[in-house]
């Protein structure tokens, strides 16, 4: 599949792989591909940030390389590492053969053969199908030193291995960074990227997403589910349900053979939607019924 030529192309590309994107998101995706810039996606958990990378790799036929961030992530797990056990064996073998030319041994030990490539280095290598999609997931979980390291890697698409030299990507990978905003990522890193805040979708788009992702749910049920979740997001909750939760919930309801929402069904399956005890306690009982009645009243004429 070729690179999209316009914003409409980009939107069609995502839609073709089952991702319903708004015009705003399609624009930044198109720009990121066209300008070869990293794409920085920020938003609440479960609004489909990671899914964009997965969809792009699938739609463009590129390999997806994922780097999951965590606190204390270091170069050894993000870029490369030497295969020390294999190196030890090589040393012992060289000794046993008695041909321990020190210079040659060094050359051999620090060659590509003993190099373990981690996601960032892997993404710089040529891949079948073209430059890969590099997903740096939940960058907010890592710490400042790693962010600073990423600055170098992402601005020039190169990493330095002291023993081997600098590895430069032949063609820059498509880089997508995501953040849940549990802390502010430094501006210097954001500045090198195209930024997009992924918001909760509106009713029509969420319904379209649900049709694409949970086609087994009936139209009537999908409408009610979408309406209820949209209404729920207006409530004062500690953690509002994301799109991922909506899809999960619809699948739960289908698995329970529910054809329509009822207060009882909602109470039984609320755990798929809300993940904090305070929120669940709030929504139990009459509150759910009240919301459901409102949703029914809004959807009624349609």
């Amino acid at each position, binding site marked *: 599949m070729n690179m999209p030529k316009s914003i409409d192309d980009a939107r069609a590309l995502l839609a073709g792989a089952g991702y319903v994107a708004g*015009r705003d998101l399609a624009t930044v995706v198109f*720009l990121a591909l066209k300008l070869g810039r990293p794409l920085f996606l920020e938003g609440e958990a479960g609004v489909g940030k990671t899914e964009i990378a997965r969809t792009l790799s699938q739609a463009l036929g590129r390999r997806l390389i994922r780097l999951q961030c965590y606190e204390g992530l270091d170069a050894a797990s993000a870029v490369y590492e030497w295969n020390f056990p294999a190196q*030890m064996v090589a040393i012992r073998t060289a*000794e046993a053969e008695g041909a321990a030319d*020190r210079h040659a041994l060094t050359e051999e030990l620090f060659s590509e053969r003993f190099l373990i490539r981690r996601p960032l280095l892997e993404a710089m290598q040529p891949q079948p199908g073209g430059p890969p999609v590099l997903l740096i997931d939940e960058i907010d979980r890592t*710490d400042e030193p790693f962010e600073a390291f990423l600055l170098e890697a992402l601005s020039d698409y190169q990493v330095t291995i002291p023993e081997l030299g600098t590895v430069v990507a032949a063609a820059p990978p498509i880089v997508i960074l995501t953040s849940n905003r549990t802390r502010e990522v430094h*501006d210097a890193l954001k500045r090198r990227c195209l*930024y997009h805040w992924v918001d909760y979708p509106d009713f029509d788009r969420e319904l379209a997403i649900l049709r694409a992702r949970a086609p087994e749910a009936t139209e009537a049920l999908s409408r009610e589910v979408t309406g209820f979740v949209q209404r729920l997001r207006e409530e004062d909750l500690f953690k509002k349900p994301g799109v991922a939760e909506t899809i999960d919930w619809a699948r739960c309801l289908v698995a329970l053979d529910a054809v329509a929402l009822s207060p009882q069904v909602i109470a039984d399956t609320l755990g798929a939607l809300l993940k904090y005890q305070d929120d669940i306690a709030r929504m139990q009982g009459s509150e759910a019924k009240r919301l459901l009645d409102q949703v029914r009243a809004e959807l009624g004429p349609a």
Partner: protein
Amino acid sequence: MARPADRAVPDGGQLAANIAHFARALRRAGVPVGTGRVIEAIRAVEATGFTDRGDFYYSLMACFVSRPEHRAVFAQVFRLFWRDPQFLEQMMGLLAPLVRGANPAPEPSPAERRAAEALAEAVARAVEGEGTEVEVDATLTFSARETLRHVDFEQMSVAELADARRAIGRLALPVRPIASRRTRVDPRGRVADWRGTMRAALRSGGDVERLVLRARRQRWPNLVAICDISGSMSVYSRMLLHFLHAAANARGAGWAAVHAFTFGTRLTNITRHLRQRDVDDALAAAGREARDWEGGTRIGACLHAFNRDWSRRVLAQGAVVLLITDGLDRGDDPERLSREMQRLHLSARRLIWLNPLLRWDGFTPKARGIRAILPHVDTFQACHDLASLEDLAAALSGLGEAPASPGGLWPRVRFLAER
């Protein structure tokens, strides 16, 4: 690097210039936009084409906005700026009703106000030769609506200043650090450094003589202070803000970052203001930001706002929370306060309550608010004078070890036992 004017753009370079002007308007409205971003934006507009207004909007937004809160400002500046290419004349038109004062403008959203002020400033500069009343009138219209109280920080007594300086001088908060997952070379460490070992081995021709070891690095936690600035706390809150300013600005004092919030009837983030070097400037800026000085207290509602809007953003990496309040709550039901305290306690690594009322020996937790807060804090400390602040420093460094207190117990334990 290509200058904006060098690039082939539609409209004979006019668009590039307009985008540069637009970036300047954004900058004045408080959205940080660098020159590199402008070049990026021109490229982006070239790539998307200049046919659809929506595409143009999203392309510029992808380049200029890097925080969700800037989106509203961006939208307003965009709306005002691109409504008409001749924006200066257009802005004059926008200002006219304000100058006349005839028709009261509809209440603008805060972002709109900033956007309009930023553009109004540009207009004021453009018409400087013709008298500057325009600017004055415009800004007055905007600020006169703020009827909430300001606080005057200039009346700080000499003694108070001296106290503050002393506190700053002594302020070395030796916090117990958190073990990080990063390591450093340490001969007494517990993690083998295979790479270092191999390098050492190569130096001696392949013989592994010793194991190079590494130890875990330690990192400092963040400090999040939530400070009550209501009337009943007015004597203490200023001094405590001094304390926080010192904590925020002392390098190597043991905190990775200090986030500060004030609350009375509403929650305000003053972190940015506390970063100013000069303590008076910082407190004056914080005073302008927080408009509810010495008013009532709604602890439950403010903690709810904190939990909803901030806790996931500032408490993620093992932060220690200082809650500074006397616990005298008005108008809220204790049920809710208790719920919000529980949520805060669950989100924070450690929750320390500073209460100036603890200065009286006979203090017992009678007020409803205090009884709602007490079960959910880890430590309960006085904070009415400098000595108690020093105790606080000791408590923070201990983090878990009980200090010597009159009853031999943590005050909190004592109060809970008495209930």
